[in-house]
């Protein structure tokens, strides 16, 4: 029974069409390399390079008080590696210039009367100069400075502890390893980019070289032609997903807390979405250059507004609403939740539903558009 069914499948048109697509993909070594290699490397770079932690800010100090207390203050700033002491200046100008030229990110100026005022129990003023070019970093650094100073005051005072001690625990990623955040994001990003780019250019190439016309003269229905374009790439991208997953686990120890099958299923769903985006693009573009440019045009906002790199919640409201139309947003949210939080369909069903809707609409629309263009 199975054998008969298999035989029917192997002799079917769909099989012939898919086999051809698969062979073309496998034949194109450059493309194959590009399908496998960049995702891996990108994962690496994202994991190792993107680290939003604010640490090791370079600090220039002008200590005019030059007392044990002032030196203690400096070492309090440096001891948690939030700041690294870059140099101790001798004049005010030296410190301000270092900040101006971007040599250091922070300057600390301790006035001569610092020690005296502390000793007399009066509040001592110190000046902290922060390079505000990176507003976010400066903000966080400012927060650290006041925390450190508060703690320092407390230590000087009596060693009394604060009455409200915050007992904070980080769930899902207790070590706050940034790779755990970026790896799922990059997976979504890579799937989206390669899926759409490869499928669109495969279709446009066929248009370009006139083979599409030949294909249309065959009994193959347009859904079969489209299906055949999708299936091999679909398989290859599923392998990419597995590859990325094992890379994440092996190199970054990204945990896998959810259901593996569920994870693969939503990934497969998203691969459909990405490929459909590509097919859609191919119906817009007339040549290779156009298809590349249009795919950038669409992929850029898709990636930017997905929350893969920067969280959606901190975007301006307009963009938050816009991102509701972004399929990648739902996928990234899903896989992060599955990997790190270990939840499943019971929580993620709205996202999955949205992805289904996207896949259906995009696939139908591109099939319709494709048929219309050719008919």
């Amino acid at each position, binding site marked *: 029974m199975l054998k008969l069914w298999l035989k029917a499948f192997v002799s079917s048109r769909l099989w012939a069409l898919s086999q051809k697509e698969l062979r073309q993909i496998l034949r194109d070594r450059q493309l194959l390399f590009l399908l496998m290699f960049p995702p891996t490397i990108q994962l690496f770079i*994202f994991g190792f390079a993107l680290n939003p932690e604010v640490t090791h800010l370079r600090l220039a100090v002008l200590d005019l008080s030059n007392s044990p207390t002032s030196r203690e203050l400096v070492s309090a700033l440096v001891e948690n590696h939030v700041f690294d002491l870059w140099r101790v200046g001798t004049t005010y100008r030296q410190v301000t210039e270092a900040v101006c030229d971007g*040599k250091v990110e922070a300057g600390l100026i301790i006035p001569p009367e610092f020690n005296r005022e502390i000793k007399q129990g009066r509040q001592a003023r110190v000046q902290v100069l922060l390079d505000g070019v990176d507003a*976010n970093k400066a903000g966080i650094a400012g927060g650290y400075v006041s925390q450190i100073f508060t703690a320092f005051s407390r230590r000087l005072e009596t060693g009394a502890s*604060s009455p409200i001690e915050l007992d904070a*625990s980080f769930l899902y990623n207790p070590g706050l390893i940034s790779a755990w955040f970026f790896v799922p994001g990059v997976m979504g990003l890579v799937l989206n980019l390669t899926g759409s780019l490869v499928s669109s250019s495969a279709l446009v190439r066929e248009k370009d070289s006139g083979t599409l016309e030949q294909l249309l003269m065959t009994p193959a229905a347009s859904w079969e032609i489209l299906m055949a374009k999708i299936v091999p790439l679909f398989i290859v991208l599923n392998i990419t997903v597995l590859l990325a997953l094992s890379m994440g686990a092996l190199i970054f120890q990204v945990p896998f807390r959810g259901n593996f099958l569920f994870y693969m299923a939503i990934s497969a769903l998203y691969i459909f979405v990405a490929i459909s985006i590509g097919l859609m693009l191919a119906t817009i573009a007339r040549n290779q250059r156009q298809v590349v440019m249009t795919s950038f045009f669409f992929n850029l906002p898709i990636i930017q507004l997905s929350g893969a790199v920067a969280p959606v919640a901190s975007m301006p409201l307009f963009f938050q609403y816009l991102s509701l139309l972004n399929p990648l947003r739902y996928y990234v949210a899903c896989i992060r939740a599955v990997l790190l939080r270990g939840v499943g369909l019971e929580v993620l069903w709205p996202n999955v539903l949205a992805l289904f809707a996207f896949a259906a609409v995009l696939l139908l629309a591109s099939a319709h558009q494709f048929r219309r263009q050719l008919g």
Partner: protein
Amino acid sequence: MNRVAVQCIKELRQFVRDRLSVALAFGLPALSMLLYGFATRLEIKNIPLVVQNLDNSALSRSFIERLYTNEQFVPVRCPGGDLVKTVLNRGIAEAVVIIPPEFARKLRAGLPSPVEALIDGTDVNNARVIKNSIIATTNSFLDIEGLSPFRPLIHPQVRLWFNPGRKESLFVVPGAFGIVLLIYPALLCALAMARETEQGTILQIYASSLTASEFILGKVAAYVIVGIAETLLVLLIGFVVFHLSVAGDALLFTLGTLLYLIDACLYGLMIAVGAKTQNAAVQAVAFGGFTPALLLSGYLYPVRNIRYPFNLVADFVPARYYIELSRDTFVRGAGWAGQWFVPVFLTLVGLLLFRIARKRLGRMQISA
């Protein structure tokens, strides 16, 4: 007429011919600028936060009020039950703060009363910011309520230089210049080169005794011109939409930008010389140009956070230096004194890329 000019004019004509591509060549940088400028917000706001108040006193309510005063947190109703399951697992809020029973009584009595915070660590940056801001809120709460057992002895006068309003666009937009002006000129130049190979017109060029240098210079010149037009557009958006102003040396920036555009086009061309199809050229440019420019340039997060061995790569990423120059020009304003090495480095990179491209083109013959 000079053959470099001839090649350049021909490239420009071909470029202008394809309307959609022209539209996209300018639409894409504009779109990128707007997206990067508006939508990239590293500073976290509007974090959904659930507070479970087990004390229900005036003091505890005032503490909660404090948490929500700035825009950092937005309140989410506490659903009760196992908060990890009902709130965090579902992603309803990113943090839960639990105020213990007898919070007010203990504090009034001078006894410690620890507050518990459960923070979703999925987004690492968020998690850290959440923790810090709860601590900061707690400290200021204690100060204001007069509950602090000690007075802060040191008063830091924090002064934010260059960007006192902490506008994030001042950081992101000049950085985005470095990405936009690299990727699009490089992409266009690579496509133009790969098309010549793919369509076989390269053979006519081989047959015309045009030298490899003339060929490269002509093509690059054309797309540098396109790049300059893109630069003007992008700058206009920077000035008008994001209110940038020149703080540093405009001349240095002009020089640096020109060199950077040349590097970008040379890079695209060099990559595409070896590519068999336009598709492969694009993938290679995107991977070799876009990824490092985005990730290894300090565009989003500090270069110093990059771990070994990628930090070594980062030292050779031109985008990194150009972004520094751009930020200096529009925000910091140190000028030549701080940035003199940028044009030098970009020139060296350009020379290197030119040599590689010339070598890869070989003797302008079919290689077999």
